[in-house]
């Protein structure tokens, strides 16, 4: 990791920790969403940037976990924090294991298409299911409540408390990912990305490594799905749509895939751009689309590339 990036991360963390003291409610919620998306982007980067698996169906575990929270929440009552979190993440992991066992039989361009197709399968299932709310989705009126032996350390209904929960999880996931990638497991998947054939010759069960990555990424996506559903107070099929997966991929690549801070930078940059473009015009997606096209053509390795460029010069 480059020196300037490290400093930037520390400054960023301090700024994020201090933000609720000054920020308005709108921006507090906005930054909360950005942090949730950043975790989501980190989870996809584990597949795309570190293992070389370009998934275009990462919305599937995200949406599955969100719907799990909706089903677990009794009307007008709070779901249990730990149970709903565990079930949501578990179900997302299970769904990823089933899908992964199938899609990992393919590679390259097939993998992209097949992950996309499975994502759409889940989308249509939810979209056509009356008991899941169909195309309108359903509301979650009360956020999950955290309770430890009758003691309630914080209340997720308060924006600032939710903000710190998201921040804590982001730091935790970021740090966990750094540890994982430096561990033998991380070295093995880096090897698989570079040359899977060679890794297999060396005696690594590459399929199992890839499946483990796929499931882990799915569980982290499930975590963010749970967070998003709890934060927004509603679930709808759009959470499973491939636009979700596409935008996420954009975040990862915009930030610079396979770099430590890339997904976080990418999530922040894309969300901020969306906010700006939305302020300009009703047809902001046109601007966003052009931005994506131009950035692929002219900034091929993402925002993290700009830091590299500085380093090489300086």
């Amino acid at each position, binding site marked *: 990791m480059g020196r300037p990036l490290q400093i930037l991360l520390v400054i960023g963390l301090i700024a994020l920790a201090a933000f609720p003291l000054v920020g308005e409610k709108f921006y507090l919620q906005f930054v909360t969403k950005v942090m949730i998306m950043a975790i989501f982007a980190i989870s996809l980067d584990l597949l795309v940037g570190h293992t070389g698996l*370009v998934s275009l169906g990462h919305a599937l575990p995200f949406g599955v976990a969100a719907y799990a929270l909706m089903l677990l929440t009794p009307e007008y009552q709070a779901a249990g924090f730990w149970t709903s979190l565990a079930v949501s993440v578990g179900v997302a992991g299970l769904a990823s294991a089933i899908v992964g066992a199938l899609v990992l039989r393919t590679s390259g361009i097939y993998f992209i298409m097949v992950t996309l197709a499975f994502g759409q399968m889940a989308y249509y299932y939810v979209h056509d299911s009356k008991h899941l709310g169909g195309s309108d989705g359903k509301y979650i009126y009360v956020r999950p409540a955290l309770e430890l032996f009758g003691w309630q350390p914080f209340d997720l209904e308060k924006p600032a408390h939710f903000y710190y929960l998201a921040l804590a999880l982001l730091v935790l996931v970021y740090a966990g990912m750094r540890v994982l990638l430096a561990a033998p497991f991380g070295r093995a998947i880096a090897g698989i990305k570079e040359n899977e054939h060679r890794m297999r010759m060396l005696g690594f069960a590459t399929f199992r490594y890839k499946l483990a990555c796929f499931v882990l990424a799915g569980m982290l996506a499930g975590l963010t799905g749970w967070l998003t559903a709890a934060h927004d107070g509603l679930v709808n099929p759009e959470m499973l749509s491939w636009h979700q997966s596409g935008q996420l991929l954009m975040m990862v*690549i915009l930030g610079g895939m396979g770099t430590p801070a890339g997904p976080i930078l990418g999530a922040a940059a894309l969300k901020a751009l969306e906010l700006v473009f939305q302020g300009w015009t009703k047809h902001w997606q046109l601007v*966003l689309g052009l931005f994506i096209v131009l950035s*692929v053509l002219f900034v091929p390795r993402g925002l993290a590339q700009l830091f590299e460029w500085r380093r090489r010069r300086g």
Partner: protein
Amino acid sequence: MDPVIFLIQVLNGVQYGLLLFLVASGLTLIFGILGIINLAHGSFYMVGAYLAFSLTERMGNFWLALAAGVLLAVALGMALEWLVMRFLYPRDHLYQVLLTYGLILVFEEARSLIWGDDVHGVQVPAALDFSIPLTDTLSYQVWRLVMSAVCLAIAAAMYWLIQRTRLGMMIRAGAVNREMVQSLGIDIGLLYRVVFALGVALAALAGMLAAPVSSVFPGMGNQVLIISFVVVVIGGIGSVKGALVAALLIGLADTFGKVLLPQLAGMVVYLLMAAVLLWRPQGIFGRT
């Protein structure tokens, strides 16, 4: 199942399958020869349908509109290849996915700016706007049969183009070895542009043919895109023959799925894809 209803379902399934073939064959050609995964392919289908709507109103004749629309689609394909696509050939699939995803957003919003967000209908050409009675209560729309016939004619024309003409020979050679074709003095850049434009034209044509039946609405391209992906995956990427077989399979599976398993209707084709993947991960006609 009543034999007449069965017949109607078979005809519907085949018609849907043939339409999918038009879209999927372009997708599979563009991948097989250019090596590009093109998410914006569904947008060309949508553009075709909207062109059919506008041009039919202006020109008053569906077939004239169809011809003009195909020419416009070819021009669009050529321009897009020259502007954007040619820079993607050496790039990783990841960037192709991303850039063409950006193109979808651009096309969707451009559609919203030009045509608005309303649903439009396109008239079936008057001479063909009647139904064949099958029983006292059931009949079959002739336009659907015409659609199938047009699709079959195009499938035959594509077979002839690829297998029997000089251009087809160059296309097949370009798919196998780009450098070799280039060093034999063939303008590979132009060849690629032609193939891309051909793919765009096929998708747009499918949209134009479907417009009178399905109506013209925002987001119509995405649905077709994903199903076409399923077709290409089942048939084997790069195989036009595979696309035809898989498209018919999907068309029939989807149509009968809606009748026999209505609660799972949206999922039948994906389950079929999962089954094929378990059996042959590279698709029915795919090379390993």
